[in-house]
């Protein structure tokens, strides 16, 4: 089922949780709502579920108006960050709950419920724990029970609110890969909320980056990561270096470096910020071209797939982070305190009318 959100706004007291948000989730897609806390992502998810009602705007399911439809009738599966399992029920009864509360006419028989629940427990790999109570399970197991419980009613939409937020790092990683596989298997339209960019980029078909109640950018993980449309997205998705400079008559000047920016031909001498990812910084011992910035190596962290270098610009004393491949790191053999020349490969300049 597709979801369409049409200019939805929501206020809590004087706080604007959502401002005129519009978004379309095509049927069968797995979409991540990514943003810092307070960005409105959870509010948006709760509005889709019907747990919260928008002040303005509307929600459409499959093109049909659903704004005033009650949670019970929306056929959404909702998975909460803290599981919200019924602790006085066994795992089996938790999963069976949605089937047992169906109106008599559409309620499956006891045997059908048993079959269905056992199938779901198999899907989430918890068949052997059917008789346990939630208190006897680990966090990861509880979240899988919550997922099975949500899937039991065959929801048209699956909504997950920070589903891995309360789990430790290793379980998180396992569970999010498992969620991706599960989605590939059952193809139910899913929206999940997260503040973890790595999680969003790894799991989702599409990432929607939110900030202060607005959508900053949406697109495939590659799109939002490689071509952030504004400084916020750049900052939020991964490590980034900031270089301050000025833009004047279609060219940016950042330290020794100048870049052509034809779209800013009319701009006169305004401050600008340039963003560079740490792996897009080239390092050499000797100056190879005048457009390089001199820096000193402050710290080297050589363990892992990439070597991380902390540098300090000699002209402004600003810190710069760089990442080198293992080979390049070995080839250079840099030491702490050495003077080097750095050159950003891929620089994105934003004229500073934008406040972060």
């Amino acid at each position, binding site marked *: 089922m597709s979801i369409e959100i049409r200019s939805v706004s929501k206020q809590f007291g004087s706080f604007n949780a959502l401002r005129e948000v519009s978004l379309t989730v095509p049927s069968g897609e797995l979409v991540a709502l990514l943003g810092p806390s307070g960005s409105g992502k959870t509010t948006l998810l709760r509005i889709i*579920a019907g*747990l919260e009602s928008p002040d303005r705007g509307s929600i459409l399911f499959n093109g049909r108006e659903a704004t005033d439809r009650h*949670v*019970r009738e*929306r056929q*959404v*599966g*909702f998975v*909460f960050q*803290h599981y*919200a399992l*019924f*602790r*006085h*029920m*066994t795992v089996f009864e938790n999963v069976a*709950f*949605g089937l*047992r*509360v*169906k109106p008599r006419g559409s309620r499956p028989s006891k045997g059908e419920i048993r079959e269905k629940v056992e199938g779901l427990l198999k899907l989430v790999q918890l068949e052997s724990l059917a008789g346990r*109570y*939630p*208190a006897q399970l680990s966090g990861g197991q509880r979240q899988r029970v*919550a997922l099975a*419980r*949500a899937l*039991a*009613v065959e929801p048209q939409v699956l909504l997950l609110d920070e589903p891995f937020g309360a789990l430790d790092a290793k379980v998180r990683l396992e569970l999010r890969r498992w969620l991706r596989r599960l989605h590939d298997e059952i193809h139910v339209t899913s929206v999940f909320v997260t503040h973890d960019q790595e999680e969003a980029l790894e799991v989702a078909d599409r990432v929607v980056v939110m900030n202060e109640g607005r959508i900053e950018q949406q697109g495939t993980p590659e799109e939002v990561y490689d071509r952030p449309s504004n400084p916020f997205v750049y900052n939020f998705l991964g490590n980034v270096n900031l270089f301050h400079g000025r833009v004047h008559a279609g060219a940016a000047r950042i330290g020794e470096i100048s870049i052509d920016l034809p779209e800013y031909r009319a701009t006169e001498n305004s401050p600008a910020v340039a963003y560079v990812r740490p792996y897009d910084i080239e390092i050499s011992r000797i100056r190879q071209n005048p457009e390089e910035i001199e820096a000193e190596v402050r710290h080297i962290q050589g363990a892992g797939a990439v070597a991380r270098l902390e540098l300090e610009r000699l002209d402004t004393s600003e810190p710069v982070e760089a990442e080198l491949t293992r080979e390049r790191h070995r080839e250079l053999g840099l030491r702490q305190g050495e003077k080097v020349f750095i050159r950003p490969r891929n620089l994105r300049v934003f004229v500073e009318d934008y406040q972060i």
Partner: protein
Amino acid sequence: MKRHSVLPGFGPTLGYTVFYLSLIVLIPLSALVFKSVGLSWGEFWSTVAAPRVAASYRLTFGAALLAAAINALFGVLTAWVLVRYRFPGKRVIDALVDLPFALPTAVAGITLASVYSGNGWLGRYLEPLGIKVAYTPLGILVAMIFIGLPFVVRTVQPVLEELESELEEAAACLGSNRWQTFRRVLFPTLLPPLLTGFALAFARAVGEYGSIIFIAGNMPMVSEITPLLIITNLEQYDYAGATAIASVMLGVSFILILAVNLLQRWSRRYAE
């Protein structure tokens, strides 16, 4: 080597608990039993099984169970209103709940008796309807409800406050209506504190003396509670008889409270 528990002080604290309970509870209670041992089995039986005593047992335990049940129902309701809604005067109502704890029981009894008597504030409207409260078993029930009111409210309230709203949201997402959510999700969570409150209210009602004698009328075989019968025996210097009646009361109370506690444990078997 002796294994040490992570929680220190098990020995001293257990020792203190046993000592304290002995001093405060066990020694006085065993003195009670020993006193009645002065009677032979035949005398004991004829004392406790006398029609007047048996009638008082039925009245006391019956009314106490009924009062505790009524308090359970309305206690949950009161706790629900106090936790779930905001309204002016909420703090005042919250404080009112505890008043039966603080009021001297004799004051409560006299007040209830005068309010429910034939020319009292409430009695004058009830009597024409054929409902006599003061000086009847119904009056005993009213007094027992009054003094037991705070227990269920105060045991259920904190649990209700801690209940995550997510549980109800999860149930609603799964298609459950309000009633189903209450019956299948909320009520089972509230059952353990409800049973605790029930046991406390019951125990309090069984032991209540002060407020009841003023409203009961104290007619033998009709509205005479067991504690009053014990006092009557004491006033006649029949210590053995008084302690015999009291021992039975103690035994029955203990068994009933134990049963409720077992039920309470069963109702939270999931937490282990």
